[in-house]
């Protein structure tokens, strides 16, 4: 019986121009977004590759020069001395800490176009991180507009395609007069509605699934691990749950017995609420309850601290280097030590403020985590960012690991500066290396899984509500 309805509805949908048009637009949108996303990821990988090649050449060059200097073949100039720890640590050997792109990176741009995902590590310290980061430049108006990525197509446009396919699911039958004839037959309203919803759901679900898979398959880049397979499953699972949510909403609204125009307005209203207004309100709530500390004030604070510290140190050390009383070498060493002391003190001063940034951002993210359940759109957006590896969580982890690594980097060089050691070939081999430690899969799975539950629960509620409506019956004519 169910399959009779499914088959008949399949024929009806096949004859509907609007359905074809909507599906075609979805396919075009997904294709374009996937292509565009893949191009961006590719460009980014190339930029990283270029930077790393440059870094490698620079390092090799430094070591060659160090060999030459140590062998006495060559005199090092003071601005390019490969054995000077302060100089090497602050400029010559500056290394890139890179947040690697995951194979699913093209799914969502996430926060990658705004937050630093590539940071140059020097002895300068985290207060200058935003100045030391590299990313593709995106004009502010483009940042404001947002990217046309797969996440946008799936979060914002896909529900609209579902609405086109479902707004007249039942209302259309009533308006055409066929509902009365159907229900004069021994078929229950629930079977009929379920059959139609199932048909359209299967159609759209399989099209979406196919497109989502193709989009990823065509753009996957880089080695594929079992972790990525889990991410892929989370991606597809969340996506399918999102499709299910919108279908359930459409059925529930159809069962209320309004006209198809009324249904269309109600569904667009729901879309507007969930995709535009609730995220907007959540954003306002997040900013109002956990405002990030002012970067503007941070600028002045670090500057004031710098002059203060400098003044203190001058008093302490007596005006050594600047007065030029020692030998040039002694003066240079004194100046370097003083610079290091200033930097260490400065970072100590800036640490609480930077800490506050981290805590507030983490608190914001935690609040978003909790409030995302208010809108399936936020749930999906967050989940896509997570599986793509461009979400807030991963970027925050990257930043804290960068800060941690920066500390190691500074310690490495500063300890040699204060011990008045020169760098050796062995030191070069022992330079700290940055390797990003991925978030554990269970942690990611728990978060995305909770989101999945957050999609399934309202879906079940809607289905329940629709069931009550179906049992009560609808206006037939």
């Amino acid at each position, binding site marked *: 019986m169910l399959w009779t309805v499914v088959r008949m509805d399949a024929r009806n949908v096949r004859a509907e121009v609007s359905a074809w048009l909507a599906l075609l637009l979805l396919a075009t949108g997904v294709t374009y977004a996937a292509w565009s996303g893949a191009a961006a990821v590719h460009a980014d990988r190339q930029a990283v590759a270029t930077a790393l090649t440059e870094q490698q050449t620079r390092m090799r060059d430094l070591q060659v020069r160090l060999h030459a200097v140590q062998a006495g073949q060559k005199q090092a100039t003071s601005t390019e001395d490969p054995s000077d720890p302060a100089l090497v640590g602050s400029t010559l050997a500056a290394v890139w800490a890179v947040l690697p792109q995951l194979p699913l990176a093209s799914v969502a741009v996430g926060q990658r176009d705004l937050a630093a995902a590539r940071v140059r590590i020097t002895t300068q310290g985290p207060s200058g991180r935003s100045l030391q980061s590299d990313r593709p430049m995106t*004009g502010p108006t483009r940042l404001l507009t947002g990217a046309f990525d797969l996440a946008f197509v799936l979060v914002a446009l896909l529900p609209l395609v579902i609405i086109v396919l479902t707004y007249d699911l039942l209302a259309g039958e009533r308006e055409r007069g066929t509902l009365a004839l159907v229900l004069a037959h021994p078929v229950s309203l629930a079977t009929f509605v379920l059959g139609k919803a199932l048909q359209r759901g299967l159609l759209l679900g399989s099209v979406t699934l196919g497109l989502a898979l193709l989009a990823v398959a065509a753009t996957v880049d880089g080695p594929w691990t079992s972790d990525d397979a889990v991410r892929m499953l989370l991606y597809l699972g969340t996506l399918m749950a999102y499709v299910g949510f919108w279908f359930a909403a459409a059925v529930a609204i159809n069962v209320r017995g309004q006209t198809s125009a009324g249904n269309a307005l109600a569904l667009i209203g729901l879309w507007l609420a969930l995709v535009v207004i609730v995220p907007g309100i959540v*954003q306002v709530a997040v900013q109002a309850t956990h405002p990030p500390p002012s970067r503007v004030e941070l600028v002045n604070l670090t500057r004031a601290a710098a002059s203060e510290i400098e003044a203190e140190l001058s008093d302490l050390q007596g005006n050594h280097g600047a007065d030029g009383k020692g030998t040039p070498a002694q003066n240079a060493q004194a100046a370097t030590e003083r610079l290091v002391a200033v930097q260490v003190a400065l970072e100590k001063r800036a640490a609480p403020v930077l800490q506050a940034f981290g805590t507030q951002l983490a608190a914001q993210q935690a609040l978003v985590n909790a409030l995302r359940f208010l809108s399936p759109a936020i749930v999906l957006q967050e989940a896509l960012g997570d599986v793509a590896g461009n979400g807030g969580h991963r970027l925050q982890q990257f930043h804290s690991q960068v800060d941690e690594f920066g500390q190691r980097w500074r310690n490495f060089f500063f300890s040699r500066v204060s011990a008045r050691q020169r760098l050796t070939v062995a030191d070069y081999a022992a330079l700290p290396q940055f390797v990003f430690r991925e978030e554990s899969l269970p942690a990611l799975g728990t978060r995305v899984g909770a989101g999945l539950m957050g999609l399934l629960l309202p879906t079940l509620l809607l289905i329940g509500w629709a069931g009550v409506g179906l049992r009560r019956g609808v206006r037939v004519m």
Partner: protein
Amino acid sequence: MIRVIARKELRELVRDGRFQLGGALMVLLQVAALLFGWRHTTAMQAERVAAQTVARSAWTTQGDKNPHLAAHYGMYVFKPAATLAFLDPGTDAFVGVTLKLQAHEQELPHDAAASDGTAVGRFGQLSAAAVLQLLVPLLIIALGFALWSGERERGTLRQLAASGVHPRQLLAGKALGLGVALLLLLLPAVLVAGLALAVGGDAGAWTRFAALVPAYGLYFGVIIAVTLWVSARAASSRTALVALLGLWCATSLVVPRLASDVAGRAVPLPTAEVLARRVHATLAQGLPQGLPREEHIDKISKALLAKQGFAGAESMMDDALLQGLELQAEAEYENAVFDYHVTALLAAMARQERVAQWAAALSPLLAIRSLSMALAGTDFDHHRAFAQQAEQFRRSLVLAMNDDFARNAGAAGWQYKANRQLWQQAAPFALQPPALGQVWADQQVAWTMLAAWMVAAGLGATLAARRMQVV
């Protein structure tokens, strides 16, 4: 006659549940967005003013030192918030607000607020402008999709046609009725905005606000005309609604992002690192197709010497003057390099903006968004004005410092120290936002597009009304 029809439409609309519910929500959202925006903007402005004061005093109290070292020490400037940012924050969250002005280096503004945010920020801001640009058109569609088709379906169109009213009058009446209904819903928001301006706005803000009102009026006029057009052409109300919603999605969601993506592709920008590498390479080697670095600097310093009347007579000058002039020659060389790269970058960004403005041919939203941001003083052009004026300010500051060095160092040379008096001579940085006329000229594409939309939609609606099938 038109007034009679308009009054009837208005009465019908106001009694409609959709109007009451949608209108109430709209007013609520508008007022909430305005109040939140106002709070945010004033807080931001207070913060920046305070920071500017602190930065200024850091400069003036930096102690006695050589003027060139003072130029190295530098000065921070902060971009003041635009008064109308509470209406339309525009690109504010996505551009930097602070710049360090110092010798030898031109910095790009950094520390954009949005980078300290979460992914929900990417759904778009819920500002008053967003409500006006995105949600009000939806309300117009919800209220107006059946204005023609509904009359036909109810059969009242036959009565109207039989009564001998000209279709144009009917159309004008319907448009007027819908417009007045909309006005009723927008009035509270206009009053709140006016109140906010009365508290904290200057004359410039009022002028810009006064220019915003007709711009939005034109935008809503376009939406009303398109709605009536589609409603007259569609076979049924249902078709009209679906077509209008489809149009809304295309013009408000798809076209802006697509245009932005295409703009990014058409005018590629370097990454920050690539740009920095290019600048350093050029600084070291000289401008492409120009002289090598040393020769270039030499040429500039010769010109400077000639200006001082010492051409070919360097031996007659004291060392400090020569050194001061050489520092200045180096600075001018660096300026030429920065001009070459940074100006090119800003120009490329501006070209991206133009692509988006031209895409307004496909979406009136892009036209009004551009106009609205520009009039509110929160668009990229205003930001560019800040970056450029700050750079001019940096150059004059560096010049003043080098000049003092050259003039007053005398025999002391690098040991020469200037004091507070000199620091205070440097006027504080004051941003001159582009004049309204300039904004108007910059937004030529946007307002032409909006006007073209109005003409096209008005013509379409009129023709459709005239050709409409009564039954």
